[in-house]
């Protein structure tokens, strides 16, 4: 199936791309929960509401961020195989301002711990954490755009510019912000009570609508790319998610949540491919050393062992009284 059918290079490149998309989607779920969750908990803290969703979210945020960063190593690795020169150049052009994402994440991480442990400092801590994650999200979006703009690299370097004012950045950020809210709602709704699910359904609908509006703006700016049908799948999945969330809002205990979660997952995968489609032509193809590198069987076996180990850990943790 395009683009994993060898059409972007050879079978190895297709495998890198598939692993990139899969690990990126996993990363997106976790960081989406962190960014939107921190924002949600901040709003609840500012309103001083005893919101059980906010309490659960605060409790899980440090772990989710740790897991999100860990999951982010996967796409970071495969990105360097697919677009090595572009990724490195964009890193270097943005320089220390790009490197600032690391201290921002460290500050955000400890702020989440503080928000969990200290009620008096909660609002400040969540405000700081949300600002840090917004900065990181903006930086990644900017880096993505710098990677594409090889025609502007010389001028950016000559000017010593660390920022890249691209018209596509705001719509992209808006798309991701809406998607993150929808992802957060889908994950948070499972342990939630009926009334909480209604609220989360409303949140998810708002996120999806914002995402759709921002996507429409992005299309108006950059044109519509069907991406070999993946865009239609994305639209169908998003519409299904909207309907399923509406159903969940009416009947929180029904199967709407299952459908909404499945549709959100499908939309995320399709969206990840659609996001990638415009730059697939830029994949660096003549990379004989990388294509011929050994070790794949070891990775596959380790992945199976690791997945089994993680499944056992989750089962053990869920079995705790």
């Amino acid at each position: 199936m395009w683009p994993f059918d060898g059409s972007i290079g050879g079978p190895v490149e297709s495998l890198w791309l598939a692993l990139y998309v899969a690990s990126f989607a996993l990363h997106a779920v976790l960081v989406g929960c962190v960014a939107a969750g921190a924002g949600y908990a901040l709003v609840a803290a500012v309103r001083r509401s005893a919101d059980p969703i906010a309490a659960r979210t605060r409790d899980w945020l440090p772990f989710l961020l740790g897991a999100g960063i860990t999951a982010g190593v996967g796409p970071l690795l495969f990105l360097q195989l697919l677009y090595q020169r572009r990724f490195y150049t964009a890193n270097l052009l943005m320089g220390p301002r790009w490197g600032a994402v690391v201290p921002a994440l460290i500050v955000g991480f400890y702020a989440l711990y503080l928000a969990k442990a200290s009620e008096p400092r909660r609002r400040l801590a969540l405000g700081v954490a949300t600002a840090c994650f917004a900065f990181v999200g903006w930086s990644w979006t900017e880096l993505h755009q710098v990677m594409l703009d090889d025609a502007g690299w010389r001028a950016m370097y000559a000017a010593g510019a660390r920022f890249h004012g691209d018209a596509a950045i705001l719509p992209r950020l808006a798309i991701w912000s809406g998607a993150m809210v929808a992802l957060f709602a889908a994950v948070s709704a499972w342990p939630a009570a009926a009334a909480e699910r209604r609220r989360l359904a409303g949140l998810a609908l708002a996120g999806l609508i914002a995402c759709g509006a921002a996507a429409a703006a992005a299309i108006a700016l950059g044109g519509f790319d069907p991406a070999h049908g993946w865009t239609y799948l994305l639209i169908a999945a998003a519409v299904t998610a909207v309907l399923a969330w509406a159903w969940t809002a009416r009947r929180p205990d029904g199967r709407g949540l299952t459908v909404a979660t499945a549709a959100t997952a499908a939309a995320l995968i399709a969206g990840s491919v659609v996001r990638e489609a415009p730059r697939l032509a830029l994949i660096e193809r003549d990379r004989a050393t990388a294509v011929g590198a050994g070790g794949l069987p070891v990775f596959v076996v380790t992945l199976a062992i690791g997945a089994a180990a993680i499944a056992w850990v989750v089962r053990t943790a869920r079995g705790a009284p």
Partner: protein
Amino acid sequence: MSPIDSAIPYYPVNDFGPLMKGLVIGGVGILHVFLAQFAIGGGMLMWYFERLGQRGLEDARTFVDGYFRLLVLVSFVVGALTGVAMWFTTIQVGARTIGLMIDEFHWLWATEWVWFAVEITAGYAFYRCGPRLGGRARLRLLALYAVASWMSLFWINGILAWQLTPGRWLDGGGVWAGFFNPSFWPSLLFRTAVSTTLGALVGCIVINTMDLPRERRAALIRRAARFAAPIAAMPVFALWFLAVLPGDSRSWLLGGSMPMTMFVGVAAGASFLIGGYAVVGLILQRLYINGATATLLLGLAFGATAAGEFVREGARKPYTVRGVLYSTSIRPAEVAALRRAGATASDPYPLRERYPTEQLARGARVERALCDACHTLRGANALVELTRTWTDDQLRLNLAKLQRTKGFMPPFAGDAEDVEALVQLLRWERDDRPAVAAAPPTSPEILAQIARWLDEAGTAPASDPRGAVK
């Protein structure tokens, strides 16, 4: 032509002011290595203490729950993030190096990532649910955490050791020949011993914070100190490591380069002090160690780690990957072509500063391409200071025959005009950048002399990839 299309990858170069790039990556790297090794040793220590707790030593279990929170808050957070920071910093310093490492070992890197994910998952599961789990589940979770964290070290160690001693990989031996390279085992064992020692030292600090009578704390310290015992074997691992190093690298560590030798001395001296206290004082004499002393020893361990990492990085010179890529991010096979075409003929990036003459601008581009990875003009490892007292001809000769001037320098990868442009830049910088360059136009005779020196030096490094000095 787009910068993406050049045959030799040229990346934009960032200026870190007076900071040499090696200092930037060194700072992040040392912190990361220290924390990551502490996480490994800490995991093993916790499994051991949990086992002791389940066999009747109640305080051991109290220790596990207290110690683990520290481990999570420090090593998970800063350790994981400095790992990502290492990646970004390495790109800043040597994008081509990290690219080559990724190209060659990406499946093994992905394997390491899986183990890291298991480590984080097991760790957090214990953090959240540990107090509510039964003894068997606790022990298994901690065992999984300890194994996963050590496996993470296992995989990354092979990739890092390959940079210094690629071994049979240079002969086309493939990824496994590169991974299980000559310094793989001594390096892995050495790092494992460091990890357990760090775990023991932090354990002793934490035990001193526990609200227990002194004799009960002493009982815990005696147990924790056992984890420092592997430090006794470190001299053997260090000698093994030295023995498998390329000959030229070994000679620099053993007196050929005094800064390197001094760092070896610092690492060995600090390790000896820690080892002596741990083995003789804590294990054999069964002495008590208070929190202040344990913290002091941990500080020494940080110093030893810093010195050891400096030695490991420095021993690779003039390469970042032995025999394959120079610290200038140029492959040995590319030097001859750059001698013909000039060092910066294909460099697509303009200068950010203005220079009074074309020659000085060329010199600045040459400096950026060939020197900037390890030197600054006026800050750390400053070229202006290193060459201040040299005469012009001495400077020309030393640059043209760079790999002969210092064995740990790569051959000059440019033509005669590049050498002369760099010479004039360094003179201009030494003279505090006069508004009008004082140097007369370079004569054809001088360029011809430089070209002869370049030819005499050749394009090969001073040592062959396995370290034999030619």
